[in-house]
């Protein structure tokens, strides 16, 4: 979070992330340049320019596959959360690699003709009625256009300017971009090559991403089955002894009322506070974060909220809903009806259960 505008909010973690990313890209490109020529089985010469184009293209598609895998992986296993933290930089890097691929392809295949390269790309193949002969370049161009729009609007400024639902809808089009790129490769290089590597990797990416998303969706659905409410409409969080024993300080237990929104009940020392599980920034799962410096910190992008009133610390103005907690004997209960965002609720003391 930042009080003023900064183009990129750098910190040590982001720098490490970006350096590792850059090294990974360079290693991949170098490796592909060395091994790539052995992978292709075609009867036309595979020139260094073609290798360069394919190295950049495959690198971009691999990066996009990793980006799309990070979300479900983080939902299935918390250990992947650090990858999610700086995913936007990963996305912008993917867009740059895609642009480099487009430049390389335009330069080699369309750069020396009588027509300007872009005109050549757009109009030299008008075989729209054919499946295998379809101008697959345009599929890649459409995917690249989506990636460019996403990269340009990736900053939080655009999130605030466009509103979260619009921004999210724009950025969900990354799935359309992935589909377009799969078809770009399937109708492009896969038709010109006999090597099984291309269809195996391409099919593998589609199957892997589909399986991960289905697994994550099932996992989420299981969490959302919801618990029944008591006669007063309150939901059981747990017993005091059990919460003290199993809930680490600064962490949350997520409870779900049947048909309702998830509630994160945070332990802060020997008190409990309940807030909505949805971050005001990008709907991140607050209950999977922890309390740092007295504030619940979203595991996705580090947005912070005070557990007792759901307000971001000054000078920020974001607010989230809070919930009332009560104690009935040894049992802690939460009222699943959310209070207006920013409503202060006195933290519930976790006194000794028999005291």
């Amino acid at each position: 979070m930042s009080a003023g505008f900064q183009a990129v909010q750098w910190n040590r973690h982001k720098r490490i992330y970006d350096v590792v990313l850059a090294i990974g890209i360079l290693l991949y490109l170098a490796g592909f340049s060395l091994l790539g020529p052995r992978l292709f089985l075609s009867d036309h010469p595979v020139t260094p320019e073609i290798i360069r184009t394919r190295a950049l293209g495959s690198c971009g598609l691999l990066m996009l596959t990793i980006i799309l895998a990070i979300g479900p992986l983080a939902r299935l296993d918390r250990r992947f959360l650090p990858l999610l933290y700086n995913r936007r930089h990963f996305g912008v890097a993917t867009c740059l690699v895609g642009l480099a691929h487009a430049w390389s392809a335009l330069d080699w295949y369309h750069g020396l003709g009588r027509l300007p390269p872009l005109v050549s790309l757009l109009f030299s193949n008008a075989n729209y009625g054919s499946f295998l002969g379809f101008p697959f370049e345009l599929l890649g161009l459409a995917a690249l256009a989506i990636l460019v729009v996403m990269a340009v609007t990736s900053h939080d400024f655009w999130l605030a300017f466009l509103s979260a639902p619009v921004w999210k809808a724009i950025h969900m089009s990354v799935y359309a971009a992935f589909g377009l790129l799969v078809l770009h490769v399937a109708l492009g290089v896969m038709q010109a090559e006999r090597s099984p590597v291309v269809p195996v990797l391409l099919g593998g990416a589609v199957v892997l991403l589909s399986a991960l998303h289905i697994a994550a969706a099932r996992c989420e659905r299981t969490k959302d089955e919801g618990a029944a409410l008591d006669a007063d409409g309150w939901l059981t969080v747990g017993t005091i002894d059990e919460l003290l024993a199993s809930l680490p300080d600064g962490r949350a237990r997520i409870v779900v009322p049947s048909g309702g929104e998830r509630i994160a009940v945070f332990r802060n020392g020997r008190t409990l506070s309940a807030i909505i599980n949805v971050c005001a920034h990008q709907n991140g799962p607050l209950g999977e974060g922890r309390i740092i410096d007295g504030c619940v910190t979203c595991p996705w992008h580090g947005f912070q909220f005070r557990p007792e009133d759901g307000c971001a610390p000054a000078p920020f103005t974001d607010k989230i809903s809070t919930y009332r907690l009560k104690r009935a004997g040894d049992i802690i209960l939460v009222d699943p009806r959310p209070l207006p965002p920013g409503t202060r609720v006195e933290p519930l003391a976790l006194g000794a259960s028999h005291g």
Partner: protein
Amino acid sequence: MRRPHRRWHRRLWLMLPVLVGGLLLAALILRPAAPTGSGPLISGSVR
């Protein structure tokens, strides 16, 4: 994560991998037995 996904929304998301996977499979099955030899791009250039 905010939960609700409407039913049509879920169907739409299920259609995407099925559509892409189906087209990929069709492109694999229908691809010519021998390499086209024309390279991956059909170019308007003189190369």
